[in-house]
């Protein structure tokens, strides 16, 4: 059976001198830097603090421990771009984040992204699952995260096949464990 290698990651490196969140995201000016300096992104409209919260929310929505934060951050970059063009949307994001953070403080005494346990963070998300911001993040992610071709190999999905002659000679019927 032609079994796929699901590993293989490329990494970029950044000098890290900012503050580090409880979950390992570094905030430096408008920049959010990932764990192990693997990636960085700039959020001039949302600000790094709110962006880091959204990235954490994104990971909590679809938590894949084998995916680096950069794949989640990429979807949040789309929200950053929309906020840059649409003032009403930008104010919705910051208003809803305040609500989510106050809910987090009420139940766990700290802001959402500073809650250490995933179960407690998802408890906050469940309590706020009707929030238009949560729905937006979840809806964008379910398309954006799983439609990112860079993540496909990690799920064992090969994508386009016609240019490779389909699977006629590449294992369409090679299952060997039944």
């Amino acid at each position: 059976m032609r079994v796929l290698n699901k590993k293989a990651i490329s990494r970029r490196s950044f000098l890290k001198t900012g503050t580090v969140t409880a979950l390992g995201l570094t905030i430096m000016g408008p920049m959010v830097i990932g764990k192990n300096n693997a990636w960085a992104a700039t959020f001039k409209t949302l600000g790094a603090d709110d962006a880091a919260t959204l990235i954490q929310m994104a990971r909590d929505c679809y938590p894949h421990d084998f995916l680096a934060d950069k794949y989640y951050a990429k979807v949040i970059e789309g929200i950053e771009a929309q906020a840059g063009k649409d003032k009403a949307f930008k104010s919705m994001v910051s208003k809803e984040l305040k609500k989510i953070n106050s809910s987090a403080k009420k139940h766990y005494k700290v802001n959402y992204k500073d809650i250490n346990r995933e179960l407690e963070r998802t408890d906050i998300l469940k309590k706020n699952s009707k929030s238009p911001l949560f729905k937006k993040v979840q809806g964008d992610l379910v398309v954006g995260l799983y439609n990112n071709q860079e993540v496909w190999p990690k799920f064992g999905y090969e994508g386009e096949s016609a240019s490779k002659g389909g699977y006629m000679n590449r294992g369409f019927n090679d299952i060997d464990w039944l």
Partner: protein
Amino acid sequence: MAKFSKNDDSLVVIIGSGAGGGVLGMELAMKGVKTVILEAGGRHGPQDFVNDEWGSFGQISWLDKRTTSGDWRVSRDFSGLPSWIVKAVGGSTIHWAGASLRFQDHEWKARTTYGDVKGASLLDWPIDGKEMAPWYARAEDHMGTTGTNGIPRLPGNNNYKVFAAGAKKMGYKQFHTGNMSINSQPRDGRGACQQIGFCFQGCKSGAKWSSGYVSIPKGEATGKLECRSNSQVLKIEHDKNGKVNGVVYADKDGKVHKQKARIVCVAGNSIESPRLLLNSESSMFKNGLANSSGQVGRNYMRHMTASTYAIFEKPVYMYRGTTMAGIIQDESINDTRRGFVGGYELETLALGLPFMAAFLDPGQWGREFAASMEGYDRMAGLWIVGEDMPQSNNRVTLHKKIKDQHGMPIPNVNFSDHENDIKMRNHAWKQSIALYESVGANKTIKTPPYPSTHNLGTNRMSAKASDGVVNKYGQTWDVKNLFVSDGSQFTTGAAENPTLTIVALAMRQAEYIAKQMSSKAI
């Protein structure tokens, strides 16, 4: 390739180019009848299709605004997308999986066989299996259906092998890789299936039959057929005697044209076809064209559907190879000891990772969902497709306020499951979960119905004019030169994928229309 004048009132004008309209156009042209097909979408061939689920979705889907209502989950999760069909030359035969099954004899007589099912508006078809047998044979030959005409069946992929091993453990007897209109060997100028795996995105090798690149070019080669793409029909017009005499359509720039016609055939799929008839209301036809019965838009059926996905310890890579080449037919019989009337087919199905995320359990998130997605490469999957009960209030109506880009009222699709549908779905989930567990599944997932691909029944065929919209040839009861040529003429849905039956009905209708024309009856 013919090009006809918009003032030519001797033409048959067909609205839509899918399984019904595309085949009807080919058949009429081959009989020497001058025919124009008006297709709302653009023309794409195998070279244009993309192995990319969301990319293809944007390229070929019918994305015009629609609304939904009723208790079906599609209305909650995908409120603006009741159906997943195609706006392009070839219609939904671009997207279809290729499964080509004949109705079983008893399914033509649903009312007689199933009796008076409470809440259902069952009728017998005014035709039967004997009447349709030669037309089915002709359709299978045209489409190159495997398992017929000496055409070998397709080889089974990994997803099929898991499915078949489970079927065997369950004691099922009737399972194989299906009757598929996908070449297993070169035929009719097209090559054999390359096991590409993106059947729903348009077949890049052209091995799969589609009216768009198989039937319509055959019609065009006669010089009697013109296929005018990017031409969305807005209204059918009639003369003072109540006979239709032309259609109004918008081109790709939104410019409105009128095409005269001797005969008009509606084949825009079961949402657009009734919508068009309703939008063609006039002082003479106040409730819409061909709607004296009040049945236009009613009895919308979508098949009882669902999926089951199962996660195993080891890889399956279900997406490799032909998407739907696998069927179990043992449950398609009518055995009321199971607690419901009618039956269902189990058919292999795979989605790519992007669509799996969207459809596996819409709206779900969190670690349980993520864990299922991490089982993607170890997943096997199947689709459940069974007969659903026609219900009068499952219907397509015109939206009272919202209009489309051409100023025409958009359709609303109202659908709620019948109790029989729910019982059948639960039975099918139970059986398919047992099937996968019998070969070692560690986790199974009940996936709810996708946006409808089998849209049926909204202009139904009936023996009596008061019960339906068209007679046994698809000719409207009210207007003798107006026909319905798509799945909307289905009286009941049967358990089988509908395309083969739509094609067979179109071939039969072409013969009827040609005879009626030559005898000057219409």
